[in-house]
């Protein structure tokens, strides 16, 4: 039987069973509208999340960073290597290929100057030590008291003796003068660093934002009995255990150009640059993987040898989040479909049953199982397609509802005044198509028993069941 004839016969059957087929079409219309509504909300959620992310990007740009620290965990001897010269060269080389999102500034990174100064300067670390009372100065430094003496104490505590340099005076408050424990000096000497009063030192803060500043050593004091001693001691165990305790960070910023630009191309380029670089790096240390002491983890929480682009990372999060949302809505839609498909399948079964005489006659004059299935399928396809088309019309009627849901949600999360949140106005083609496909698939699955039965039985059985 030709497909055109199959559909012609099905159309005829539908027209002459309007009561039943209209009801089924109505069910399909309502359910498909609901299903598509749910999927539309899911898809729109994603679209709007992307709007937010794009907006964030256009405002703040993207920062590329790669950091590495040469650190020896004194408990576990774990070495997170620094960024090597080769890696830096690689970075420059790859960045060349992505000039449009990297610009020409690759070499001009803060950290490289840090890198150079590290060679000469003796380095102290301050950090957020657990168990120690930290204070934050006005300009935002985390302060570990014994190191940045001048910044944190208004007077020198009793029992502290200066062995070299001068003692603290009120004028040192707020200046870049520091006073260092004698023990630190001794350990620095053990590590091959000779420090004297008057030396410039760099202080690196490895907290949230790495900060670096230069200080002058004004004096050394006997500090073994200070309550802060242990912290400094541990630090120096770290430093003295390795000559090369240093951190390197390559970092650069890309500002999206003002006015119109190709967002997708920009993002794709940033993404591939980021991925290429990450793949080229040896390892991506997740701090959680390192069985180090608390101190270690806290100190170096920002230090991985991963190449990071904050915007690409953010988009990855958007992807994951929106996939989850879409999955949840798709599941809901599937459930709705599943609940309703029974009634559609029933209508198919009834239709097969009601048409038994017709099918029996058709079989008597030579219709085979495939032809019979074709007739049932085409009738179903017509009903479902018309139903889904009506469903699309209903969906457009439900647009204001979907829109207010999305706007309310995103207005709550972000400001809708700032960004134009709306439901995706274009229903993606795959949405009705896959709804039709799912309906057909599920209905056939439910009704296949009765179709197979009538398709495979002897003609006379089909015909005699009518009487």
């Amino acid at each position, binding site marked *: *039987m030709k497909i055109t004839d199959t559909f012609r016969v099905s159309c005829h059957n539908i027209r002459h069973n309007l009561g039943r087929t209209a009801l089924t079409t109505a069910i399909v219309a309502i359910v498909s509208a609901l299903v598509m509504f749910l999927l539309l909300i899911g898809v729109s959620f994603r679209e709007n999340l992307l709007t937010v992310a794009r907006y964030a990007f256009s405002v703040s740009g993207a920062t590329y960073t790669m950091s590495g620290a040469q650190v020896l965990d004194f408990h576990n001897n774990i070495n997170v290597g620094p960024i090597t010269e080769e890696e830096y060269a690689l970075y420059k080389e790859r960045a060349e290929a992505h000039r449009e999102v990297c610009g020409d500034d690759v070499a001009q990174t803060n950290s490289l100057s840090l890198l150079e100064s590290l060679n000469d300067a003796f380095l102290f670390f301050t950090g957020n030590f657990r168990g120690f009372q930290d204070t934050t100065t006005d300009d935002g430094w985390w302060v570990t008291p014994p190191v940045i003496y001048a910044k944190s104490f208004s007077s020198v505590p009793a029992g502290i003796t200066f062995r070299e340099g001068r003692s603290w005076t009120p004028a040192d408050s707020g200046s870049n003068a520091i006073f260092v424990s004698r023990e630190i000096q001794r350990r620095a000497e053990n590590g091959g660093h000779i420090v004297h009063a008057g030396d410039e030192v760099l202080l690196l803060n490895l907290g949230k934002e790495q900060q670096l500043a230069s200080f002058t050593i004004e004096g050394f004091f006997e500090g073994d009995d200070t309550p802060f001693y242990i912290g400094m001691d541990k630090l120096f165990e770290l430093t003295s255990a390795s000559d090369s305790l240093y951190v390197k960070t390559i970092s650069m910023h890309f500002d999206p150009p003002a006015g119109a630009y190709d967002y997708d191309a920009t993002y794709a380029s940033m993404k591939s640059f980021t991925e290429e670089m990450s793949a080229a790096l040896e390892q991506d240390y997740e701090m959680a993987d390192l069985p180090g002491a608390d101190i270690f983890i806290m100190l170096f929480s920002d230090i991985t040898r991963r190449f990071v682009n904050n915007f690409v990372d953010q988009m990855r999060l958007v992807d994951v989040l929106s996939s989850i949302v879409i999955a949840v809505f798709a599941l809901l839609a599937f459930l709705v479909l599943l609940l309703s498909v029974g009634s559609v399948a029933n209508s198919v079964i009834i239709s097969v049953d009601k048409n038994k005489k017709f099918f029996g*006659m058709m079989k008597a004059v030579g219709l085979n199982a495939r*032809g019979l299935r074709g007739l049932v399928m085409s009738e179903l396809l017509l009903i479902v397609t018309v139903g889904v088309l009506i469903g699309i019309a209903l969906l457009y009627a439900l647009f204001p509802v979907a829109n207010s849901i999305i706007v309310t949600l995103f207005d709550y999360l972000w400001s809708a005044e700032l960004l134009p949140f709306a439901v995706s106005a274009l229903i993606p083609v795959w949405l009705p198509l896959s709804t039709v496909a799912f309906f057909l698939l599920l209905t056939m699955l439910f009704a296949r028993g009765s179709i197979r039965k009538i398709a*495979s039985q002897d*003609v006379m059985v089909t015909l005699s069941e009518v009487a």
Partner: protein
Amino acid sequence: MIELRNVNKIYGKGDGAVHALKDVNITVHDGKFTAILGKSGSGKSTLMNIIGALDSPTSGEVFADGKCLTALSQNELAAYRNKTTGFVFQSFYLEPTFTVLENVAMPLIIAGMKRKEREERARAVLEKLGLGDKIKKRASELSGGQKQRVSIARALVHEPSLVLADEPTGNLDSKNGSEVMALLREIADSGKSVVLVTHNHADAACADEVIFLKDGVAAMRGPLLPGEDPYGG
């Protein structure tokens, strides 16, 4: 030539089982008008359905021109029917919502014939049967005699070699009935095999050969003599 060998048909199972055909061995010869004669419930329809490959025997074999029908699959049987056989039923089995033309063309639609060609052929057959003016009518709008002639047209449209008719005159008055009988005789004379199921001696008298059925047991013999009691008194 259709040959039935040791054909049995049992409906149902267990206590309620009906042994409708018992070891039937008969032959339907090509180009002959064969009548299946018997009382109600003797198994005539069952036998005809098996001869026409509408039904399959519980045991035994059916050969059509040497081809074993009982070995064919449902789909192969459907193709066989679509090519080789035409049916006329007592209750017509026309599709009331389709036009006369569509009803008659149905075997050709199933065969996948082009619309123009099949409609031409259906129209030609209908005109031959004197229904040329009814082709656009719905089947439900026809009289019983017209319906039966339409169903005969449907049984002929694909030019089968075997036409089977199950009590085709059962729902017709005597005038229409004898018209249908004359038609069947004509078909047989045109070289096709015709199998007629009837409980009517007069109708069976038109046949070249008669298969007697009694409680599922079949016997073949030549034509009935005028006035002969086929059940042997």
